[in-house]
């Protein structure tokens, strides 16, 4: 029996868990995937938008700007890297009206320090920008963050403060009695709570229907991305957008927090909610979109590509409300862009919605154990850590400089890695230019050893994605 169940361990669910973990409540987060941040939260642009894009007066607009303002303090508390690099919406000849519209919206949304830049100023900020860039809307408050690093930090902090996490558990139904929430039904049995927060991403509308709550629809919209190598010498310094289209902010180019260059996303509505495949046309469109902003973009340095699904709310705004029909049911659905930007504010708002249903008694919030990133430490400190634990001196992932000690740590954290993708998200092992070619066999061996399981049981992303098919037959005498 829990006080609150949160369905979905993406950025929204984990932000809610983090905020609720300041209160004396029994909270459970139930997630169908094997880990936090496996769906939309893992496959987005990692941008903390300034907030000039959403329509004024919407939740999207308010929470984007509020969330953006909360980022520096939150990331400092959680030890998650965050950089306010600023954004530029670049207009070519004839597109100036779009910029004026965004500027007006930004002002209405109280976005700080917006400015319109002329060609010279754009060039001084982005020397590699297309020669036909004429004007740009500059928003200094925009920033970049690693979405899975933030989600994990929120989740781990929640976990050390008592929030429980249940993975590989799909919610198949909602038990409602006399118009009040009773339980979430899963393949492993019923989970009882009088309050359920629906942060189920792409599937949130289906769950809301199962609960009998007010209906809304989610339209999955796929976005494809290209990720380029690191060390491109600051080829792009800001988050750079073209002028927006009716359905998306366009194909942008930005540096990631880890130092790569990211291009994307496309915007293509799909029916299949499990379809995360990239397409030839989509990737080609991403390339063209990138070249339109930066003609010299080194596309030959692509190291990987991926696709994500946005949970687009059909009615155009976040669905963040207590149900009036079903007591205890709280929807947090349709969180497409600016979902990541708004996430800290969404978490606070959800606590406010819970407060209307039950008494919230505060408690001291503990910090999660610090994350060691040895490659960032000065040599003397690195030496100390290695003396304490020699495994910090053995580099396993050569491309990203990740030691065996850090990998072992990730397998024993408050929310430990249980898949290779989870290891990659926590340590960056396997996310570099060789994409695991060098380190993957070693990671499999380390995981098997640390988790005490056969290497045949190691998965890429949960049950069904086992890495290996068998062992070689041993010869006689072995």
């Amino acid at each position, binding site marked *: 029996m829990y006080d609150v169940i949160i369905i979905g361990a993406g950025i929204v669910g984990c932000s809610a868990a983090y905020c609720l973990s300041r209160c004396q409540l029994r909270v459970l987060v139930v997630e169908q995937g094997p880990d936090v941040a496996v769906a939309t939260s893992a496959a987005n642009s990692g941008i903390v938008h300034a907030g000039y894009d959403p329509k004024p007066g919407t939740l999207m607009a308010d929470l984007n700007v509020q969330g953006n303002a909360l980022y520096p303090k939150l990331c400092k508390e959680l030890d998650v890297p965050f950089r306010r690099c600023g954004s530029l919406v670049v207009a070519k000849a004839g597109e100036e009206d779009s910029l004026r519209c965004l500027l007006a919206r930004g002002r209405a949304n109280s976005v700080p320090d917006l400015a319109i830049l002329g060609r010279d100023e754009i060039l001084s900020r982005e020397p590699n920008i297309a020669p036909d860039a004429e004007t740009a809307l500059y928003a200094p408050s925009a920033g970049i963050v690693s979405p899975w690093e933030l989600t994990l930090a929120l989740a781990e902090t929640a976990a050390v403060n008592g929030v429980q996490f249940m993975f590989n558990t799909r919610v198949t139904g909602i038990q409602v009695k006399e118009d009040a929430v009773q339980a979430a039904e899963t393949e492993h049995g019923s989970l009882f709570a009088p309050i359920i927060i629906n942060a189920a991403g792409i599937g949130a509308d289906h769950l809301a229907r199962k609960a009998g709550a007010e209906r809304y629809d989610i339209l999955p919209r796929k976005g494809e991305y*290209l*990720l380029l190598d690191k*060390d491109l010498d600051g080829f792009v310094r800001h988050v750079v957008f073209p002028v927006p289209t009716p359905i998306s902010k366009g194909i942008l180019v930005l540096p990631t927090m880890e130092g790569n260059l990211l291009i994307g996303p496309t915007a293509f509505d799909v029916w299949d909610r*499990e379809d*995360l*495949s*990239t*397409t*030839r046309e*989509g*990737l080609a469109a991403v390339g063209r979109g990138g070249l339109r902003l930066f003609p010299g973009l080194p596309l030959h340095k*692509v*190291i*990987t*590509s*991926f696709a994500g699904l946005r949970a687009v709310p059909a009615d155009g705004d976040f669905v963040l409300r207590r149900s009036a029909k079903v007591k205890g049911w709280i929807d947090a659905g349709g969180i497409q862009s600016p979902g990541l930007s708004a996430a800290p504010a969404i978490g606070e708002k959800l606590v406010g919605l819970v407060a209307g249903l039950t008494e919230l008694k505060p408690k001291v919030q503990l910090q999660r154990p610090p994350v060691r990133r040895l490659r960032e430490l000065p*040599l003397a400190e*690195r*030496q100390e850590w*290695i*003396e304490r634990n*020699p*495994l910090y*001196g*053995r*580099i396993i992932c*050569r*491309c990203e*400089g990740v030691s065996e000690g850090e990998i072992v740590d990730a397998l024993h954290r408050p929310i430990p890695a249980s898949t290779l993708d989870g290891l990659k998200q926590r340590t960056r092992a396997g996310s570099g*230019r*060789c*994409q*695991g*070619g*060098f380190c*993957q*066999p070693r990671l*499999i*061996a380390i995981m098997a050893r640390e988790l005490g399981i056969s*290497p*045949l049981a190691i*998965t*890429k*992303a*949960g*049950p*069904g*994605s*086992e*890495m*290996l*098919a*068998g*062992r*070689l*037959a*041993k010869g006689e005498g072995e």
Partner: protein
Amino acid sequence: MKADLVIIGGGPAGMGAALEAHRLGVRDIFIIERDLFLGGILQQCIHNGFGLHLFNEELTGGEYAQRFIDQLGTAGIRVLTDTMVLEVKSGLVRAVNKDGVLEIQAGAIILAMGCRERTRGAINIPGSRPAGIYTAGAAQRLLNIEGLLPGKRAVILGSGDIGLIMARRLTLEGAKVLAVAELMPWSNGLARNIAQCLNDFDIPLLLSHTVVGIHGSKRLQGVTLARVDEKFQPLAGSELSVPCDLLLLSVGLVPENELSRKLGIAIDSVTNGPVVDQHLHTSSQGIFACGNVVHVHDLVDFVTLESRRAAAGAAAWLQNSRPRSWLAVNPGENISYVVPQRLTLPAQEDITFLLRVKKPLKNPIFSVTAGGVELIKKQRLVARPAEMAELKLPAAKVPANSEITIDCRGEEQ
């Protein structure tokens, strides 16, 4: 710590250079190797065919490596395994291992880091991202070192040697290799590997084909192959669905030059390796390079010979021999690249050029010219991009000051 010579990489290139440097009188030598054992990629090559030129024998990769490993001890060459070089700055080599961070001030450095494999991401194969996609070398490591089978029904993309060797290896372990697809209209691998790895096992080789789709959300369920046109674009309507649980990618090797780039060493955009002279001296004073880090070799025997030239270069450098001037060596007609890309003068020994042609040619004639004058001409039976060619230019014929161009003309196959 100080050393005369620090060699980064303990594969055949690094070990060959260390032993030759020692033979030439260099005494204070370190080899730094990131893996647990010496041997580099040879460790996982359990097939034979190594050493045909150098030893007149058909050794396995491990046996070839052991010949060098055995000699390192007697030569007193210091070896640090399980140690990763982090950076090199002004002759200072900084590395890390279980004992901590170490720094060695080197009189000369030889880069011998080998190469890495090109990935799915780098060639933009669209589709889902399931488990079951491996580069051929990573699969080889899993199989031959860890004893683990990555899949049971395989499609291999790329008919380079690694892909061919793995086709046979997987078949011998009971997996079914359904096809080897090759983008080009000809195979990239050694002729003997096509025969011994594909033909002998009735594995179909689909030339002018590539993978256009990957299916399966958690574990690979199948791939879509398609034929390509002369511009390597997939032909609509030629798609072929192949159910499989393993896709091996053998789509190219990329010399591992992160350290070199950080040092600001000039890199050849065709080889992706450092620009070197006949002594394997890079554009950074006192830093030499040899083996796959300079250009991807087909035969380890050539790597060993090249490593001896680098060792001689480093030994001469340590004796204060300094280059006086250079001449450029240019790849001409039908030549993809030539190593060395420049010659330092005066040339005291015969020059060994290693090169690759762009297209397969019958009865090719290689011609080395400078200032309009033909220096040497060599006719061969056949030239293929997949088989590195060697040309020797006698020291006496090296021009005093005009650039050299190497061309290859013949009948297209």
